[in-house]
């Protein structure tokens, strides 16, 4: 028995006119939900671009924050975003890929501790981001690690936030490598680690890279944890090192939006356009990477 897809299967039309009308109306309503979603998306993008357009110039990149909206710029925020992203990437990608390799290649899935590990990662992926901020505030900024409100603290908090995403994406990438590759390597006398590191991982790299870029783009847009870790201190300098205070684009946007003056909303919109532009670049790069280097089996 062949399985035709519902959209192409022949079907006797409903017999009565009211039944046909109901069917058409139902289909239109369903399509309408997609239309509403897309229209909202377009409205959002257009509105933000139009609002921010007056301030989309070099000033935005060169000036620092100021209490006067005409003199405010996002230079500190953009630099801070790049610094924090660097720290986050360095911390979460190696650890995440290593954890994924363990879970996918070495762990015996019947053991309770490995199942607990998997469940734990799935749970962490759904914990509200502000709870990570509480964790950061309690243990990373103050408390045990005591790093203060530094780039390192912010990067570490965000790394913990997106670690589950990197692990899950890397596991998918590793899973897509056919087992014949592993078995052939082992049959030729490779140790398990040789088989993984020299055969499986290189094939999975495009998927891992795509997943990591998506995780980083999620981290770039996160403001809630950094609200608690860094706060809204008035930053008028680019970070001097991993120990310096910082601010990031989402925090700056939040800060400016909360000010009463209308002109600040314009600058906030302009900064939002920059943020969305960075995200668009990153995601396009991830998609290009996947399409260019992904091997099809």
């Amino acid at each position, binding site marked *: 028995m062949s399985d035709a*897809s519902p959209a192409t299967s022949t079907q006797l039309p409903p017999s009565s006119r009211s*039944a046909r009308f109901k069917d058409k109306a139902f289909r239109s309503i369903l399509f309408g*939900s*997609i239309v509403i979603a897309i229209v909202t998306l377009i409205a959002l993008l257009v509105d933000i671009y139009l609002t921010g357009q007056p301030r989309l110039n070099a000033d935005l990149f060169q000036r620092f924050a100021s209490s006067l909206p005409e003199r405010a710029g996002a230079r500190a925020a953009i630099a801070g975003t790049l610094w924090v992203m660097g720290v986050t990437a360095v911390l979460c990608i190696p*650890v995440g890929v290593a954890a994924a390799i363990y879970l996918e290649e070495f762990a015996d899935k019947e053991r309770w501790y490995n199942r607990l590990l998997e469940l734990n990662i799935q*749970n962490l992926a*759904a914990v509200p981001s502000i709870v990570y901020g509480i964790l950061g505030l309690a243990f990373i900024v103050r408390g045990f690690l005591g790093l203060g409100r530094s780039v390192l603290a912010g990067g570490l908090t965000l790394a913990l936030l997106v670690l589950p995403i990197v692990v899950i994406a890397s596991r998918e990438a590793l899973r897509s490598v056919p087992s014949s590759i592993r078995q052939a390597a082992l049959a030729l006398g490779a140790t398990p680690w040789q088989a993984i590191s020299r055969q499986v991982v290189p094939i999975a790299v495009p998927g891992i890279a795509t997943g990591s870029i998506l995780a980083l783009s999620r981290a770039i847009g996160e*403001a809630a944890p950094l609200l608690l870790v860094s706060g809204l201190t008035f930053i008028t300098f680019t970070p001097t090192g991993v120990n310096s205070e910082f601010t990031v684009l*989402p925090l700056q946007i939040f800060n400016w939006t909360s000010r009463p003056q209308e002109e600040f909303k314009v600058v906030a919109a302009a900064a939002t356009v920059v943020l969305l532009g960075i995200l668009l670049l990153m995601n396009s790069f991830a998609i290009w990477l996947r399409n260019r280097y992904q091997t099809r089996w």
Partner: protein
Amino acid sequence: MLHSSVTVQPPGRRARGLSLTRTRPRYGEALIKGLLVLCATISILTTVGIVVALAGPTVEFFQEVGPGSFFAGTDWAPLFSSPRFGVLPIVTATLVVTAVALLVAVPLGLGAAIYLNEYARPRTRKVIKPILELLAGIPTVVYGFFALTFVTPLLQKIWLGNDPPGIYNGLAAGLVMGIMILPIIASLSDEAIAAVPHSLRAGALALGSSRMQVAVRVVVPAALSGIVAAFVLGMSRAIGETMIVAMAAGSLPNFTLDPTQPMQTMTAFIAAVGLGDQPEGTIGYKTLFAVGSTLFVATFIMNVISIRLVRRFREVYE
């Protein structure tokens, strides 16, 4: 999964004294495996860290403020000089905004999922799915900005009653949050609906059902556990969301069920206290952790339910 500890015993082994097991232990392999395990356990450390970070100050908080007056009180002013600790205003605010968000996201998301599976051509589906994923990739600050600067003025302009919403209101935040969680509900429902075997649809069509009847009476009930999982996960996400409500719903606690009023949710409160830089050890500082614990426990329970449901529907059909 790589097992190289299998021992093969050829017949007559004892007689010939040959062994096919490893003759030397591989220390390098064990070291590498240990490093990998270490990286995997960082996730456990994160969870333990979250629980420990929340538990200590929360316990201290409840020793000073009784659980009864916390969970049942309706006056929330923990940072005032004469503090009151009734948490209900911020809890109801969270629930009101979440309810509005779900009222938007569930019909739209489920409708989109049904359309993509039952009616759309494969090419249409390939175009629409990424666009819906785009909604999920927009930072929540951007959504908050949109709610404050576009949705609220729009609501004020088209409001039909006497009392239009103010600058800060839960309705705009809820509507925009609904758009934000729409992709979650849509993609999980889509997965659940796609997993329903085609034989069920074919049987219903053969018996003379219209496509609408197939979708509503056969497919959706069959995919129900996945759809409920999507609903629960969306609800958990909406409850835990901070930026949209912090920017658009306001920072004044307000015990009301009316979404057109300004209100402060649990997450917005945590953000406000965190920004206010309370000194460590004060009751104000501990309030942050008490509310954080409530939030964490609520979303944790919902996440566990959702994961269980997803596992169940994946097992049934695969």
